[in-house]
């Protein structure tokens, strides 16, 4: 709160709004849908939110640098299929398969980063191309056929540890690491600087070529991890993934206060954004809302989040 009073930490208020929305929604759902506040359902929300959340954490790095990564869902798909192939095809241990998938995500991210920082492509174009390339890669690797995995592999994406969903625990751990990187490491500072004003950063000796690729690699690694979560949940490498996942993840980051103009955004906000989307989806299912309406609600949610953000900015500017 103190940070908000001082007009600091720009994302603080949007986070507050997102957190408020999650709480209000949860309270409403508790009364409207008896099934909402049950341990099974909360567990499910944790499982379902993890994938979006993992992607949104990665995207936050990129969005802070004033970039965008449209390829996260496709690279998650590629990671999932490669990971599944390593385990089912090459007989690698599950851990190696997972690391392989995450690594593939990192490679895709590196490609994005080099296209943006070294070849000078606009992030939208670079990652749009990468999205299509990765889609092709998925089909090439899988021959458009699913790769089944042993049932025990569902531990990563849907397992339970002390009654808590394993994927959510992983995501929280990753979120803490990501948060520390953004706030306690110099690299984090450089991400914000590059997104806020690339020229100012350059004249301060901060090289975009050096640091931008890192943001995309981190984004790719997390997308790869999201892909492994999804593979684990379906206990198979799937040649067709949900392309909307990328947009959900972008929406989560934006709802959490990340600015697509760069220089603003927090990991905590991205998590809240993902959670809000997860709860809305969950509530809609519990209340038997027509699934098509769910998309309409999500879209409106994005408008609301950004409108709120703009109003906050104007207030801030007026006070100055």
């Amino acid at each position, binding site marked *: 709160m103190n*940070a908000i009073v*001082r*007009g*600091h*930490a*720009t994302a603080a208020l949007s986070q507050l709004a997102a957190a408020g929305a999650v709480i209000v929604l949860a309270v409403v759902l508790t009364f409207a849908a008896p099934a909402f506040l049950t341990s099974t359902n909360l567990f499910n929300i944790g499982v379902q939110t993890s994938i979006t959340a993992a992607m949104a954490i990665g995207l936050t790095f990129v969005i802070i640098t004033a970039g965008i990564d449209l390829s996260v869902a496709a690279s998650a798909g590629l990671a999932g299929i490669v990971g599944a192939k390593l385990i089912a095809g090459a007989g690698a241990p599950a851990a190696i398969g997972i690391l392989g998938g995450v690594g593939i995500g990192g490679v895709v991210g590196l490609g994005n980063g080099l296209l943006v920082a070294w070849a000078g492509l606009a992030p939208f174009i670079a990652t749009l191309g990468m999205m299509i390339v990765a889609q092709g890669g998925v089909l090439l690797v899988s021959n458009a056929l699913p790769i089944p995995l042993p049932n025990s592999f569902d531990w990563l994406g849907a397992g339970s540890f002390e009654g808590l969903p394993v994927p959510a625990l992983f995501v929280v751990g990753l979120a803490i690491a990501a948060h520390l990187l953004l*706030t*306690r*490491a*110099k*690299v*984090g*500072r*450089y991400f*914000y*600087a590059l997104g*806020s*004003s690339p*020229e*100012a*950063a*350059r*004249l*301060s*000796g*901060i*090289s975009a070529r050096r640091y931008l690729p890192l943001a995309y690699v981190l984004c790719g690694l997390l997308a790869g991890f999201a892909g492994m979560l999804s593979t684990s949940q379906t206990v198979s490498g799937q040649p067709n993934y949900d392309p909307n996942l990328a947009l959900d993840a972008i929406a989560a980051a934006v709802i959490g206060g990340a*600015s697509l103009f760069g*220089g*603003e955004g927090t990991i905590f906000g991205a998590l809240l954004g993902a959670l809000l989307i997860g709860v809305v989806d969950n509530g809609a299912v519990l209340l038997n809302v027509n699934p098509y309406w769910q998309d309409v609600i999500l879209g409106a949610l994005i408008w609301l989040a950004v409108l709120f953000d703009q109003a906050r900015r104007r*207030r*801030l*500017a*007026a*006070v*100055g």
Partner: protein
Amino acid sequence: MSGAVVEFRGVSKRFPGVEAVVDVSLAVQAGEVHAVAGENGAGKSTLMNLLAQRERPSEGEILVAGERVDFHGPRHAQRLGVAMVHQELALFPHLSVADNLSLGREPGPVRLRRRTELREARALLAQVGLAVSPHALVSALSVADQQLLELAKALAVDAKVVIMDEPTASLSSSEIGVLFDVVERLRADGIAVLYVTHRLEEIFRLADRVTVMRDGRLVQTLATSSIDEDKLVSLMVGRELANLYAKPNVEAGPVVLSVRNLTRRGVPHNCSFDVRAGEIVGLAGIIGAGRSELARAVFGAEPADEGVIEVDGRAISPRSPRDAMRAGVMYVTEDRKRDGLLLNRSVAENITLARVPGTRGMLNRRREVEIARGRVEALRIRTPSTDRLLRLLSGGSQQKVLVARGLETDARVMMFDEPARGIDIGAKAEVFALIARLAEQGKAILMISSYLPELLNMCDRILVMKDGRIVGELERDAFSEVRIGAMATSERLAS
């Protein structure tokens, strides 16, 4: 008062938390050039925005040509004959000159009437003495020409009163001459001109009367013939200001920065100069002479193709600002909004950006706040805390943050590009005092300014640039505005 083209009666404007304009009453006569002076944040621009109906007054009334004006927005103000030349250019870079001039007031209901538009455009361009084709794209025009175009646009509305907000901020001296001619012509045509400026000599050169504002209030309106510069400054600042330029008396030490035959395709061309420890060397020249380009080539921002740069006798060839900073060279940019500051980040982050404290990739936030607090105090940066977002600070404070960042690198060679641009007199004096202190510490300082008095007062030596070359060099005892002006504009002149 009869004959007043514009009259403010008890006008106030409050923003949340700020009283920008407080109870201002003022009458401006036809055919009068009326200067509005005051420091940043004094309320000059807000007052002008009220007249141009870009803001709605909180209290009071505004009369144009004796008629009380209700607030209906900028279009309405234009129809009443209030023309505003924007401080920040409000042109469309991808449209032609003629399109920009006719935009929003195209003749005819639907169809574009190209020929009429072109004819009108030519007439307007002639009126402001701007020799460009009406077909030219605005993006291809120099900043100065854009400024004149902006003026032409203002005149297009058949103005009774023209508001000019810092019109000379980005003009060179010859272009300023053209602008002054235009102002004189407006006066002769019986048009009232409200002229907002920081530059005192322009007030005395142009204005019949001057209104001084401070903290949103009107301090006094005076005939310019009845006061001198010192009096005007003390009215603006609210106290006696000892000395704007604190030139240090330092014995120059050994050569720190040595540049030989520095060339980059375009500009600079074959530039050679030295800067000694404790010396302040000025770079003079008209806009486009290549002064910033020279400094930026030394800084590696746009690396040189040829030539030798030495710092303390060691050759460096910076390919990026990072290289230059490692070699002890720092550059403080002229355009703080475009390539200087992180406006949506905190004061502390901005101050430490070029040298983030911490070890092994980790950030030491406590140290960062300490550093920032120290600089905020030493430079008297007006901010409630080091966490404050930079865009909430005044222009002067922002500039000081930029300077603080440069200082934080502790570079041997400091290059300041227009260090006092767009900041008020109090802040200016502080920035110059700071530069003086750096010289006393034995730094080698290169200073670029388009405002000659700054160079004449602060520098030990002045290099004059023209068309990317250094065309002249003057020692302090040979300084003269006339000679520098001649070198900066003449066709051939040996150094």
